């Protein structure tokens, strides 16, 4: 029982972690809380659903989710956040909420508001060390692990990733080091969008696809981003895992309704002890 909940928690935690990664990357580099991250996930879930219905392939669904969420994310930047750059954080937050509404409304218009599910074949659980693990969980966990490896590979092993971390660290010094802000921003929004897309796809496969799914998951993603130390990508992922596991493992005790609230209890408890989050290192964010 505990083992099964642990496995479910890990999968759920990877979803939260990917969404929190999208939030924390934008916060670290563009320096505002992107409230549109959840609905960017939703766009990925619908794109994945369409691709899956057409092809039956989860890999193609993943590609479609990444492409759609990356495009939505980049469009949001070019059309809204770029013109508003250097405005106060509160303005950007409100703008992001607006973008979120627009994405949700468009998805609702196109796909309607009824819930849809991924038609995945039922399969017998795999026995592993006494645990019965649904094969889909293994697939999803593998997809998430690959997505995370790719994201961290970009951040730490590529030139544009280094430039992104430099801008997050000190935008003024980045400027006098010849780093071009526009290129970094485009890479940022594509990367954050891609992470949100994979998160949306996984959430859709695990639960249901609806226009509201991403918005409803946004607060948990924010909680993980804050818990991990806002601006810290590794912190966001680890905090996502922690919250996902805490939520699933506690479900038998606190019930389904309260497991969302639990994320915030954990977050508040940690922040009281460590105000900068578990892995916090970003200082002086405007």
């Amino acid at each position, binding site marked *: 029982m505990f083992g099964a909940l642990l496995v479910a928690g890990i999968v759920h935690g990877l979803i939260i972690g990917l969404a929190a990664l999208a939030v924390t990357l934008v916060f670290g580099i563009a320096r505002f809380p992107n409230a549109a991250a959840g609905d960017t996930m939703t766009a990925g879930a619908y794109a994945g659903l369409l691709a899956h219905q057409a092809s039956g392939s989860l890999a193609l669904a993943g590609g479609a989710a990444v492409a759609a969420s990356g495009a939505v994310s980049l469009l949001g930047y070019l059309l809204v956040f770029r013109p508003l750059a250097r405005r106060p954080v509160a303005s950007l937050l409100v703008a992001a909420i607006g973008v979120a509404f627009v994405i949700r409304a468009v998805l609702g218009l196109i796909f309607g508001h009824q819930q849809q599910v991924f038609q995945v074949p039922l399969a017998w659980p795999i026995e592993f060390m006494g645990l019965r693990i649904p094969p889909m969980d293994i697939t999803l966990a593998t997809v998430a692990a690959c997505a995370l490896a790719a994201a961290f590979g970009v951040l730490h092993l590529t*030139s544009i990733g*280094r*430039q992104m*971390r*430099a801008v*997050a*660290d*000190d935008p*003024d*010094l*980045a*400027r*006098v*080091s*010849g*780093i*071009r802000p526009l290129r970094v921003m485009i890479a940022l929004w594509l990367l954050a969008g891609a992470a949100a897309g994979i998160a949306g796809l996984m959430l859709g496969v695990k639960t249901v696809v609806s226009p509201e799914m991403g918005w409803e998951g946004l607060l948990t993603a924010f909680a993980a981003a804050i818990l991990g130390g806002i601006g810290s990508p590794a912190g966001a992922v680890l905090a996502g895992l922690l919250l996902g596991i805490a939520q699933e493992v506690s479900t038998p005790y606190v019930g389904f309704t309260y497991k969302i609230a639990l994320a915030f209890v954990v977050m508040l408890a940690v922040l009281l002890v460590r105000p900068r989050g578990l892995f916090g*290192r970003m200082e002086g964010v405007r």
Partner: protein
Amino acid sequence: MSLLEIAHLTGGYGETDILNGIDLTVEQGEILTVAGTNGAGKSTLAKAVMGLLPRASGRIALDGTDILAEPVERRLALGIAYVPQVGNVFASLSVLENLQVVQGVRDAKARIAELLDAFPALSERRRARAGSLSGGERQQLAFARALMARPRLMILDEPTAALAPARVVESFERIRALPALGVSVLMVEQRARQALSVSDRGCILDGGKVAMLGAAAGLLADERAAALYLGRAGGA
């Protein structure tokens, strides 16, 4: 022709002018110190040359070409480098990454190897996070980062401000060695006497204007400069 020529330069951050008509040159191969009281506009002048001041008018020319309207990227490409007063390294990046991240460098690998040779302390700690370096190492990294793009003019804003007193002398020695590498220097310094002692010329800013300008030795010997701006001999 002067490497850098500044004429009638005015400008500031908002409505009010911080710089009130500055005339100044930096010659090829020279070190020029800019001294002056707190708030005189020294950092503002440094930013204006790099292209970081929101509003500037007058003339700033590099090798005779007016660059006043050029953005930061263009000035970097033309051979100006800048080491800010605070925040002069990427603390969360490794030493090596601080050098790799500089853009617009021809043959970057070879340049990094050259600079790590020139700064052995950095070479030893190339995998360390820049934030974990000592003050002296950190400054070497700030210099190395600025030198990546093979600049002809380096602007240093208070290079010794964050250093322990024991590190100040070696820091000035490092600056003194720059012209031999083909790098001229415009240095803003509070430790005016020590800075002037490694400089060719000096300039004293007051209220956004050049109050005094001349050979470093002359300024050091000048009674009025000493009384008003440099503090007592042996002090500072």
